[in-house]
């Protein structure tokens, strides 16, 4: 049945695409990743191949949603067609472990000892381990910050340090829009994502599910306040809708003054808008009250090894280098701004250096400083159900389909309960 792959190889050879030299037999492993994460992995390869010249790592950028879809499809097919290593977003990872417990390898069998596990914070590991099985190794985390255009803020006379609350953010947004025609304060992906809700609710200690994953908490007061605040920002005209690529285009075109995202967005801005060096800065996310929490997490990934991999040892060697050493993690932080979750990497000198792109601001000190304050938020195995229901509810709420945010989220909670069978927390 594997005749076809023979055909593909022959085809590749004809086209001169075969890259394996005739004299050596390096182990070749394939890895699925996306966007800047994929690019940052590529930046570790030079250092990795100095130590391990015999392992060739082939990083494939498939896009976030494609990696998810294709991995699910491949696991549903019994694991056939998976690459050696797959990237997971932490909050979606549990879907895989719960539905396909045999699709990925227990890293503990390959050398993921408890000493290595202890090098990562607990909140990054909860979603990656089930009992004694460790399915994936933590990679980066996404401490949230506001990325802002210094020049736009200055022109409006807004000092970022004075933006303490979301109400300040709204007021500042109106000033900035008035002073910079054609510029909007911030953008949210109301079309295909729920990122603003997830960031703000996490800051306020709320989420779709409770941290023990046993109940639905989306209609708790802190979540209701979050949705209410997002609607206020939208109605004030300071938060407009833009999908991921539109945000990137707006950054480059200079039509947006701020973006709220996890720390990993640093690399997206810096590498996509290189001409704007010196114009961007970073400040802590506002809160509901001036003395409220100013820390949240969005995104953050992990790497796992498929059960069907023919080169598990080589795959583990690479993961342990890229994620488990300061050298690998700092290479990714430098190249694309992926925030290490490896605790020791935070003490590396690079973290406290001023960054030229960011106008000499030591952005990593500021961003990583919020890490200890982040409240864990659990994705659970029902993440995609809850997220889909939330997005539909948000759209309907914005369109006036509910009297208030409480009614909207009560409805969302009921729908999630129907889809998952979990109880709604009282």
């Amino acid at each position: 049945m594997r005749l076809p792959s023979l055909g593909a190889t022959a085809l590749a050879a004809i086209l001169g695409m075969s890259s394996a030299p005739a004299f050596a037999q390096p182990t070749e492993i394939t890895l699925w990743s996306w966007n800047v994460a994929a690019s940052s992995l590529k930046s570790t390869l030079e250092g990795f191949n100095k130590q391990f010249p015999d392992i060739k790592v082939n990083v494939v950028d498939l896009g976030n949603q494609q990696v998810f879809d294709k991995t699910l499809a491949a696991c549903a097919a019994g694991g056939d067609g998976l690459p050696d290593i797959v990237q997971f977003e932490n909050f979606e990872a549990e879907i895989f472990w719960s539905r396909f417990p045999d699709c990925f390898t227990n890293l503990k069998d390959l050398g993921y000892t408890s000493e290595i596990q202890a090098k990562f914070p607990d909140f990054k590991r909860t979603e990656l381990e089930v009992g004694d099985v460790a399915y994936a190794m933590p990679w980066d985390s996404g401490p949230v910050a506001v990325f802002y255009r210094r020049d736009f803020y200055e022109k409006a006379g807004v000092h970022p340090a004075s933006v303490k609350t979301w109400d300040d953010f709204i007021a500042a947004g109106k000033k900035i829009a008035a002073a910079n025609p054609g510029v909007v304060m911030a953008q949210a992906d109301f079309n295909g994502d729920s990122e603003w809700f997830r960031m703000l609710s996490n800051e306020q200690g709320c989420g779709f599910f409770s941290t023990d994953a046993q109940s639905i908490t989306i209609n708790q007061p802190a979540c209701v306040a979050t949705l209410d605040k997002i609607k206020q920002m939208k109605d004030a005209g300071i938060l407009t809708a833009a999908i991921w690529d539109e945000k990137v285009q707006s950054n480059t075109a200079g039509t947006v003054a701020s973006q709220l995202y996890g720390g990993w967005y640093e690399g997206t801005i810096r590498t996509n808008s290189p001409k704007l060096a010196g114009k961007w800065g970073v400040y802590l996310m506002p809160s509901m009250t001036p003395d409220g929490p100013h820390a949240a997490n969005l995104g953050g990934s992990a790497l796992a090894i498929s059960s069907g991999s023919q080169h598990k040892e080589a795959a583990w060697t690479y993961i342990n280098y890229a994620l488990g050493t300061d050298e690998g993690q700092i290479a990714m932080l430098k190249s694309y701004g992926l925030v290490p979750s490896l605790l020791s990497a935070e003490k590396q000198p690079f973290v406290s250096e001023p960054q030229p792109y960011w106008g000499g601001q030591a952005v990593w000190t500021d961003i990583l400083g919020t890490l200890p304050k982040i409240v864990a938020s659990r994705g659970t195995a029902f993440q995609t159900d809850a997220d889909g229901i939330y997005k539909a509810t948000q759209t309907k709420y914005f369109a006036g389909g509910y009297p208030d945010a409480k009614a909207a989220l009560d409805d969302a909670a009921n729908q999630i309960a129907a889809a998952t069978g979990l109880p709604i927390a009282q």
Partner: protein
Amino acid sequence: MKSQSRSTLIRSLSLHAVLIPLALVWLFPLWMMFVFATMPDYGIFSPQIELLPSTHFIENVSNLQADTDFIRALIISIGVAITYTVLSVLLTSMAGWALARYSFVGKSLVIAIILGTITLPYFVVVIPQFIMVAREFKMANTWIALIVPPLFNSLGVLFMRQAFSMMPVELFDAARVEGVKEWQIFLRIALPLARPTMAALAIILFLASWNNYLWPLLINSRPGMMTAPVALGTLIGLTKVSWGGIMAGAVLLTAPILVIFILLQRHFIAGIAAGAVK
């Protein structure tokens, strides 16, 4: 007589006054695809209105090639579409021949099944089909899985059956009297006569396979085996992606089939129109 020709002129003018703008609107997306494919990204995302092509097509193609191995995907698509078309025309011709020219037990059942599957949404089948091919048969990421399941094609059989039943029966009976075997009658007499019908069917099937998206997306998880539409689809929504490159890919995907369309318009239209002729 004079007033007649004047009213004809007015009718002709008003006809073109309606059709020309409509045709321009209809051509606009195709034209823009071509224009985008020749523009650098800063041109696509510029605040000006750009309606004329630029000079960056080759550059965009090489950007595309860097984002995904598109040339390889195109070659795979060509191979898959040709194989699929040949096999499918053969299979549907054989089935159409059987249904047109023989009476046998179960014939009405077979016809009922074929008619039934036309109204059946493909989505009823796709999930279990995927599970079965991938998990039970262990055939994910094989050419067989890519090509064989879509070979079951109801409209094609009905189309061929129609063509065969319109041929004069004397032709075949004469051959039978001379002792020619059934499969030889099919191959030597019936198939050559059905050539125009087969050409029309082949073009439609080639088009369907060339543009097929869902099944190859599901069944092929290996990036090296992606067909061109799937390879292009993976780029939409990526961050660091060249839109000029995507558009160049769209042009590379569309241009060959447009050329086929122009050259073989008659067969093409016959193939589509056949859906209606019962």
